[in-house]
């Protein structure tokens, strides 16, 4: 319950409206992985190729059951790298495609990720993060791929689209949104979820049939003529290319011409970079999604995303009821990083599930005063409401975050 004294509450995301628009359906108690699968299928995904890994395994299992029911195809790839390449091939041939993994598998996907981004192939990749490094603790949550998701390919010269849900219902809508954005931007959209959101069971509303969603789902179209790659242009809503209809398109990861064959000229390289970077940067306003509580009058703002944001939000609301003017900012779009949300010159407390500090560095970069950004790192377990309250208390009093067991506050 939100106390009446809170100044402003807002959710900036397409589903702020979708939640109220679609009311004819059923409610189930289900997991985040179930919601993700259903959202993908509702948005038209008809191909999944992946490899089992905790906590994303259930996505593969659900897909293996649901896709044949809707005339789609599930391929269990021999490894995650093959899986994403298969998805890219299927997308090029005309099917909306998705893959899903966790950190150890996600890190294998990078070559394919870059190939798809460079060739403007629409794809959605899900990373259900768990604690690291590497295999870590199998059943514990983490948020260690914040930067990898942005820099998910070698060689630079790309921008990335990364979204993160914080509830089972939001996972459903966000997956539809991700597939839509993949079509509109002709790129790979990464969904960074985590073990908690994937495995937890919550109330989930499902529209009666996928046809009801036709007005919000971006359909697959195909571009059959030159230019296959409008190099030098930042336009979005360009139809994806298609292989197998004899258009003569060439698809490869070399620097390429508008026709797609490889060329070793500076002009082509420059034009391609403009396209891949600016098509996302110049449309940031289409991509901004976040949730905020009391941002406009807060004396201290807690920043978090994913499962971490749940306890952080509760702490902020409780602090408000106790008279502390705390604010809460939950990022849904992680990349392109929303610098424009950090204009207020107040202390920030950044809660994230890692000890090396990733999100906090971006907040330090974007906020007006770097030394007013406090890091509250925890790993393998969610921050408790009490811990966040104690942190808020310390920061408001100007003493910084007090020492607490398993809480990391140093950023170097």
């Amino acid at each position, binding site marked *: 319950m939100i106390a009446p004294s809170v100044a402003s509450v807002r959710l900036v995301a397409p589903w702020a409206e979708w939640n109220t628009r679609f009311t004819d359906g059923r409610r189930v108690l289900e997991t985040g992985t179930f919601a993700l699968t259903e959202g993908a299928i509702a948005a038209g995904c008809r191909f999944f190729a992946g490899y089992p890994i905790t906590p994303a395994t259930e996505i593969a299992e659900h897909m293996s059951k649901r896709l044949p029911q809707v005339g789609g195809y599930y391929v269990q790839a021999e490894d995650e790298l093959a899986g994403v390449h*298969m998805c890219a091939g299927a997308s090029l041939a005309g099917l909306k495609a998705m893959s899903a993994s966790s950190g150890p598998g996600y890190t294998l996907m990078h070559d394919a990720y870059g190939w798809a981004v460079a060739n403007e192939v629409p794809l959605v990749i899900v990373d259900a993060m768990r604690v690291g490094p590497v295999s870590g603790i199998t059943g514990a949550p983490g948020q260690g791929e914040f930067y990898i998701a942005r820099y998910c390919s070698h060689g630079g010269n790309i921008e990335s689209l990364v979204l993160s849900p914080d509830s089972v219902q939001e996972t459903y809508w966000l997956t539809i949104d991700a597939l839509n954005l993949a079509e509109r931007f002709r790129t790979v959209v990464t969904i960074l979820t985590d073990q908690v959101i994937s495995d937890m069971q919550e109330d989930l509303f499902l529209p009666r049939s996928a046809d009801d969603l036709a007005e919000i789902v971006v359909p697959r179209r195909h571009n059959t003529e030159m230019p296959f790659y409008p190099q030098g242009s930042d336009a979005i809503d360009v139809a994806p290319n298609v292989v197998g209809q004899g258009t003569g398109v060439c698809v490869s990861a070399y620097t390429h011409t508008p026709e797609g064959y490889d060329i070793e000229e500076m002009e082509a390289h420059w034009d391609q970079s403009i396209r891949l970077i600016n098509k996302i940067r110049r449309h940031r306003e289409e991509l901004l999604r976040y949730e905020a509580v009391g941002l406009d009058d807060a004396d201290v703002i807690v920043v978090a995303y994913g499962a971490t944001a749940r306890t952080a939000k509760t702490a902020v609301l409780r602090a408000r009821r106790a008279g502390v003017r705390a604010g809460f900012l939950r990022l849904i779009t992680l990349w392109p990083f929303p610098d424009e949300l950090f204009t207020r010159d107040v202390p920030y407390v950044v809660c994230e599930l890692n000890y090396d500090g990733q999100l906090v560095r971006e907040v330090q970069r974007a906020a007006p005063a770097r030394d007013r950004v406090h890091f509250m790192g925890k790993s393998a377990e969610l921050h408790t409401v009490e811990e966040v309250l104690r942190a808020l208390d310390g920061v408001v009093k100007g003493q910084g975050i007090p020492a607490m067991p398993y809480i990391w506050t140093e950023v170097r």
Partner: protein
Amino acid sequence: MANRLVEKYLRPSQIPTKACHGCGIGMIENWILQAIDELGWSREDVVFITGIGCVGRQTYATWGGDNVGATHGRALAVATGLKVAQPDKKYVVVVGDGDAAAIGTSHLIHAARRNLGVTVICEDNMGYESTGGQFSPTTPAGYVMNSSPYGMVEPSFDPCDIVKAAGATFVAEYTAVQWLQTKKAIKKALQNDGFSFVHVRFQCNENFGAYALGTRDTVANIQWIEDHTRGVDRDGRPTEFTWETGIKHDASNSRPEFSRLLRDLNTRVAAGNGRGGHG
């Protein structure tokens, strides 16, 4: 006027290819095009999928229809997605020994296991020539290459054995002096609704020839290929090894093709007989 297949099938801006003079890649591509021509297929019917390295790079975008140049070793993974999503096109996967027998062997094995309906032309110059001539898993044992200056100590293998063991339904091996047999094998391979693998060893002058054989002379290097195909050199002396060429396995059209398996599953599920187990 050039070879008449250029106008029929190739992309003019990409010819002449980037291959070195005397390289076998263009020869084999000529035979692939003849096979396609004799089967009566058009540009729109066939998609060329290539890998990284000389074979992939020099072939990529030469085909006048659709081309897909995958990352190193992953041509078969991309081919799997393409074939499942769009099964009625013909997919010709042109990869080198590095792409197929080193970095991409896992995907080669699984594509063969699944009996994916593509035709893989593995053009083998027995080394990583594009990066200057390092040895590869198909370099003859003991040969000196840029990364085996004392002679290659690793054993090598024949990728034909691997795909056959994994379940390929058509496997053939020839060399660059066997144009007629290779073309016939490619035609058969293209008509197999299943996984076809045609392995063609060929000469490299700039790197393999220079470092392993001691010459960049084009005729000498293709002569070396001929000698080891026949098993004797020009003076009648037996060569130290001979490649066994021929159609090694032909079970064409005997097993269901992978995309067919998935479609049949969907039909069964739609009819209500697909369900099994829990849920």
